[in-house]
């Protein structure tokens, strides 16, 4: 249960921080930090048991049918990563609070950061690979939000998009790979997969699973050739870079390599894929990093290089290399996060992070200089810092590795990469802090407050401590974690500074001296580098995405020309085809059920219906006339519902009819009064044939269905259970809010989306070409200056309270008599529509108190909360409860939770109608260039001074 709590704490923190958006920044940081600290303490309390060999697990069923359950387990590997995520997360929260400028919304930033922290934590403690995938995608999404945090910067947006495309795309491959892996192992539970090594490596699907999983890991961990997104992601605020792009997210791929090491590693395929990729990435990243002037870009490429190093170590497939990998994960996280924060300090205090404009800061910023130098030298691999230890061990492993029969290849490349790495680390230190003092810094540099240098200082202390006393500080952890990664007792290793005169030491000395030499001749090296014809990965990516976009656009345009006639034609053609197919397979003759005799009133109504429909067709060129005939059809249909004993449907139909006609009138206002035919004659004949076949088919189908006895209809159950099960006698309403409550819930969401769709579509009407068209629009009829006549305004005022009472009445009785939330919502909407219509949009709008979008949200949330409420009582979602109560004066009455659900329905309906109305009115107002009016009536006798004018 504690693990569940740990995993939920960051998400709760995100929620709490976003709720505290109006509070001070310090308060928000305390909230975020408090939640993180709580998670850290919980984790620490588990650490002794976990390091003692105990695996803590927790389990909660989510979707057992899919094998997707909330299963967590904490072993030493998970513990190390969780510690890094939470610990560095805590430091970053403190750092970010002081780093962000006053204009940045810190609540949003911290909420995103906590979301990311929760997702990342989920990856490392998931015991279920499906759950792991969910968290994996969540890290991609939350990092997208964090990278693009400065939305106003185009680089931020582009970087975020690229990161999402690459890591999200890799995530898709990972999903496929994990599913294959799970199927081979016969379980989605990680602990069970980890013991199925034999089955997995002998399976013919092993290469497929391996390649797909590796794509996921390599994209996330920025391995060549997917490395290009990481430098672009540096557009993020520096705390994000320090957290995501050095210590946590980019390590997710490496984590997965380590996690699946016992079952995937050890084959030739693994070695050549993983070790080679790592080797190439390590070399390439280090080389590019040396020639980057932007400090963050330098650090980004150096991160790529170090991730390549880790990948290579895990790719070697030997237990000892895995031990080194684990150790280096720890070391890299400490010095790299510290360096990123250090670069952030320089950027923050000096105003630039361009290495060419820096230098000589050691006297101006002694604290930052000390911290940056120590972390930088650790990255260079100099004793007595932790970077030296793991690099030394890495070189030692490299000398034992034979690549394709070539014994010298891996050691030589590793040495060259180490040399380059030393060179760029020296460059970071030398070109920022040492050298002559300059007099053209953008700002006057000075050391920042402890809020900024404190967090990296903590990490730098670790760098030194691990470097000086490796066996005492990191030894036990590395021992336990390596045991998990290897899946067996790790080989003997000694974390110490001095191993004697080994080949690794000589390689290390070569690397450091060579690095120093390279930095000395940096200028000429840079000229050679610039002359090299190197492809730019970002341009290639941009070209590739552009190609994808053009291709998909070509295909879309070929299928969908934008012509509604064409789409409808295809749609109906397919529907008719399916209908013919269905009818030819089954029975389609009329049934034997007795028909109801048609009274003369029925015949008249039927004639009116047919007449109305024919009139719509005949008058289709006159839009307003068509609307009148359409309303005739709607009216007859609602009368038909009353006649056939469906009062609920009739009420709904008539109110929908009113709302639609009113909104359509508003829309038609701007269209030409006549619609000239746009299709050719042959096409109209074709459409007519299609329409006759479709209509005839539906008619025949209805006839065939209605002349049969229903075969065990579900309505019998609804009839029987409405009162005892749902507590209402109105079967239609009980069905809507109870039996099929989930459907209704989905429908109000669809309604909300549709309203937002109207909003979005018409929102663009004011801009661009359509906006210009609107501005150029001239009314085709002369408008009366008296737009809001007194009688109409006064009458509508009288109607308002009555309509509200009717709506309330329909709403309250809905459960037992015709009515309900949907109808009531429509009646309320009509009551308000009338006000808007009579008194003018502007005047009525001023008296509106609630945001329309909020109304829709409120409605859906109310319905959802009602549904979720039943979970509290251990019942399934949307189980309704009802009871009978007695109050003096009022008497016996019933209260049902369905009523709350119905409130949600009504609110959503009102919000949707009002949103459509306001958007249409906005467009109309813009088009008609209506002046501002203050009064609801154009002529008002009570404003006597004006009438005397």
């Amino acid at each position: 249960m504690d693990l569940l709590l740990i995993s939920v704490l960051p998400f709760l923190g995100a929620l709490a921080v976003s709720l505290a958006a109006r509070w001070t920044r310090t308060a928000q940081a305390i909230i975020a930090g408090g939640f993180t600290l709580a998670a850290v303490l919980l984790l620490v309390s588990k650490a002794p048991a976990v390091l003692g060999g105990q695996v803590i697990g927790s389990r909660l069923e989510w979707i057992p049918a899919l094998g997707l359950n909330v299963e967590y387990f904490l072993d030493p590997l998970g513990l190390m990563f969780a510690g890094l995520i939470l610990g560095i997360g805590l430091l970053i929260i403190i750092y970010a609070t002081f780093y962000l400028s006053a204009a940045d919304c810190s609540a949003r930033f911290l909420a995103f950061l906590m979301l990311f922290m929760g997702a990342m934590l989920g990856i490392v403690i998931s015991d279920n690979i499906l759950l792991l995938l969910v968290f994996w995608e969540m890290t991609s999404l939350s990092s997208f939000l964090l990278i693009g945090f400065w939305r106003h910067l185009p680089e931020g947006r582009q970087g975020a998009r690229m990161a999402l495309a690459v890591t999200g795309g890799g995530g898709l491959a990972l999903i496929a790979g994990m599913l294959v892996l799970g199927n081979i192992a016969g379980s989605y539970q990680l602990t069970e997969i980890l013991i199925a090594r034999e089955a997995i490596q002998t399976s013919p699907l092993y290469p497929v699973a391996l390649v797909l999983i590796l794509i996921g890991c390599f994209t996330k961990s920025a391995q060549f050739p997917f490395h290009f997104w990481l430098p672009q992601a540096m557009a993020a605020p520096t705390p994000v870079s320090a957290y995501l792009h050095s210590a946590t997210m980019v390590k997710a791929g490496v984590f997965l390599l380590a996690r699946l090491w016992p079952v995937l590693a050890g084959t030739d395929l693994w070695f050549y894929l993983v070790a080679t990729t790592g080797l190439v990435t390590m070399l390439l990243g280090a080389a590019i990093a040396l020639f980057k002037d932007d400090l963050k870009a330098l650090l980004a490429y150096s991160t790529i290089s170090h991730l390549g190093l880790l990948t290579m170590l895990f790719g070697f497939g030997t237990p000892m290399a895995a031990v080194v990998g684990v150790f280096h994960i720890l070391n890299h996280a400490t010095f790299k996060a510290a360096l990123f924060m250090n670069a952030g300090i320089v950027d923050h205090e000096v105003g630039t992070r361009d290495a060419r404009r820096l230098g000589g800061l050691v006297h101006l910023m002694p604290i930052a200089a000390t911290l940056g130098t120590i972390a930088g030298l650790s990255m260079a691999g100099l004793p007595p810092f932790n970077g030296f230890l793991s690099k030394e061990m890495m070189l030692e492993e490299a000398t034992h590795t034979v690549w394709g029969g070539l014994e010298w290849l891996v050691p030589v490349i590793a040495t060259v990469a180490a040399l380059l790495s030393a060179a760029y680390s020296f460059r970071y230190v030398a070109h920022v802090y040492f050298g002559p003092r300059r007099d053209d810094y953008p700002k006057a540099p000075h050391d920042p407050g402890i809020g900024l240098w404190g967090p990296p200082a903590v990490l730098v202390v670790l760098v030194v401590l691990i470097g000086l006393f490796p066996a005492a500080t990191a030894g036990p952890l590395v021992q336990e974690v390596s045991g998990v990664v290897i899946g067996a007792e790790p080989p003997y290793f000694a974390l110490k500074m001095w191993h004697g005169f080994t080949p690794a030491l000589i390689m290390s000395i070569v690397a450091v001296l060579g690095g120093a030499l390279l930095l000395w001749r940096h200028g000429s090296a840079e000229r050679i580098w610039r002359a090299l014809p190197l492809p730019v990965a970002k341009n290639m990516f941009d070209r590739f995405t552009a190609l994808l976009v053009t291709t998909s656009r070509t295909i879309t345009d070929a299928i969908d020309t934008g012509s509604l006639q064409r789409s409808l034609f295809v749609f109906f053609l397919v529907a008719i085809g399916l209908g013919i197919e269905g009818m030819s397979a089954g029975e389609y003759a009329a049934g034997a059920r007795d028909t109801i005799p048609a009274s003369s009133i029925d015949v008249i109504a039927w004639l009116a219906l047919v007449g109305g429909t024919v009139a719509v067709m005949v008058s289709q060129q006159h839009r307003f006339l068509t609307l009148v005939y359409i309303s005739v059809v709607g009216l007859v249909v609602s009368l038909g519902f009353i006649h056939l004993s469906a009062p609920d449907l009739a009420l709904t139909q008539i109110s929908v009819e009113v709302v639609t006609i009113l909104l359509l009138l508003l829309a038609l206002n701007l269209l030409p009064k006549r619609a000239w035919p746009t299709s050719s004659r042959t096409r109209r004949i074709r459409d007519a044939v299609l329409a006759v076949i479709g209509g005839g088919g539906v008619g025949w189908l209805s006839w065939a269905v209605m002349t049969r006895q229903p075969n065990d209809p579900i309505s019998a159950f609804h009839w029987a259970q409405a009162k005892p099960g749902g507590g209402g006698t109105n079967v239609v309403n009980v069905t809507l809010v109870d039996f099929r409550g989930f459907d209704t819930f989905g429908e109000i969401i669809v309604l909300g989306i549709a309203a937002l769709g109207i909003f979005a579509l018409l929102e663009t009407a004011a801009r661009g070409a359509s906006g210009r068209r609107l501005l150029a629009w001239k009314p085709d009829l002369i408008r009366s200056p008296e737009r809001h006549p007194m009688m109409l305004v006064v009458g509508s005022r009288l109607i308002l309270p009555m309509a509200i009472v009717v709506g309330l009445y329909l709403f309250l009785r809905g459960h037992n008599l015709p009515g309900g939330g949907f109808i009531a919502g429509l009646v309320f909407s009509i009551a308000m529509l009338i006000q808007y219509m009579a008194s003018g949009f502007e005047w009525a709008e001023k008296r509106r108190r609630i945001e329309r979008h909020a109304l829709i949200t409120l409605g859906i949330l109310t319905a959802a909360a009602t549904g979720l409420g039943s979970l509290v009582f251990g019942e399934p979602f949307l189980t309704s409860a009802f009871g009978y109560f007695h109050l003096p004066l009022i008497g016996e009455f019933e209260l049902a939770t369905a009523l709350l659900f119905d409130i949600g329905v009504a609110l959503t309906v009102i919000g949707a109608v009002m949103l459509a109305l306001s958007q249409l009115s906005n467009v109309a107002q813009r088009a008609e260039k209506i002046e501002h009016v203050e009064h609801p009536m154009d002529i008002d006798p009570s404003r006597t001074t004006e009438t005397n004018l």
Partner: protein
Amino acid sequence: MERVAEILITILIPVGGAFALIGSWGLVRLPSLMTRLHGPTKATTLGVGSILIASMLYFPVYEGRFSAHELLITLFLFITAPITANMIAKAHLHRQGSGIDPNPADEMPEGLPDPTNWATFRTNASRRSDAQHPDEN
């Protein structure tokens, strides 16, 4: 008592029906829109009114319960019918005055006393803006 009610109801229903028929007849037959507006007015007031009264007599006497529906119907009719007629007349005046599809039977342009004094054509606001920009007219 029942007998009296019965007689009243038997009279009221045909009278209501007759007015409704006459109103509809007038709607079809009368030549211009303004005259045609009179038809439905008779149908809604006298025609529907008589039938509502008949209904109000019938239910207490024969069914033994008082019904308020008729009062509500009356109320709604009294609010909506005049507004509808007013709006139709206004729209008609506007179209006639602006010269949009005039019906010769209306003979309106001559019939109007002074178009500038009708709210449909002029409001205070538009009058004021005319005073500021007299050239536009």
